[in-house]
């Protein structure tokens, strides 16, 4: 994806995937599906994180890197008969382009869907120029 707004670096994806494959004992992550929508006001990133409640969701911002982590109960309760879900939490990293205003970022989660709102800096929003005369 080549928009200069909310970008996911390939290196980061490969690094985190390699990282998670190499480790056996420590935490494993699955990559959650995400939709990104842009409007004049900003961007909305919506991620499917089934099994993740409000207390299990971590959204952290460092410089221009936004990391979303959703922890889940990996072990199955009871005796397994059939398992399709992955024994892993969710993790996805985004690098924010210049137009995002990091101060106004907000996040919420409901029914396993996390919604991140990333407002644009004022300069990046379209401005109406008043016509005089």
């Amino acid at each position: 994806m080549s928009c200069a707004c909310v970008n996911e670096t390939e290196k980061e994806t490969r690094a985190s995937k390699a990282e998670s494959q190499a480790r056996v004992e420590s935490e494993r992550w699955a990559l959650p599906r995400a939709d990104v929508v842009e409007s004049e006001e900003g961007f909305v990133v919506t991620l499917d994180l089934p099994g993740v409640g409000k207390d299990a969701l971590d959204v952290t911002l460092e410089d221009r890197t936004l990391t979303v982590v959703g922890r889940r109960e990996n072990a199955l309760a009871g005796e397994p008969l059939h398992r399709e879900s992955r024994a892993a939490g969710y993790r996805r990293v985004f690098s924010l382009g210049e137009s995002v205003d990091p101060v106004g970022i907000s996040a919420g989660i409901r029914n396993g869907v996390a919604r991140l709102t990333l407002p644009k800096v004022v300069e990046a929003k379209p401005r109406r120029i008043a016509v005089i005369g």
Partner: protein
Amino acid sequence: MKLIRKNKPTLFDGFGLGRWGSFDEEIERLLGTPFAGMSRPTEFFGDWTPALDLTHDKENFVAKIELPGMERDDIEVSLHEGVLTISGERKAEEKKDDEGQLRTERVFGSFSRSVRLPKPVNEEKVTASYKDGILTVTAPMAEEVKPKQIDVKVK
């Protein structure tokens, strides 16, 4: 390069075919091919195949299915002759006029998963609840009862 997904029948009869799930999805993301909401070629009974886990303890069978972003009223749970069926439709969010879709990966639409419970259950006592995007159906084991179709209210 388009990876061929393994076919996976959605009626499970106890032989645990497992799920290919994220591996080829991750490869597709690394290659930068936008998923763009195109329907996946191998869904038999709907647009979308949510992951289903089946476990048991001494008294109950428990089926858990990943259904993020649904409303309770859009999920149907029924039991017929020992086969538990969970189906419904995940509605896509309304897109506002001034919004542009930059990336689409999440799946929406209809789904249906069925699983044969290995032992007879007490159909009157089957319950279902929905929390954090996971639907949990609990079916207490019982002696053989007359097969009939019942509908379960999702709490």
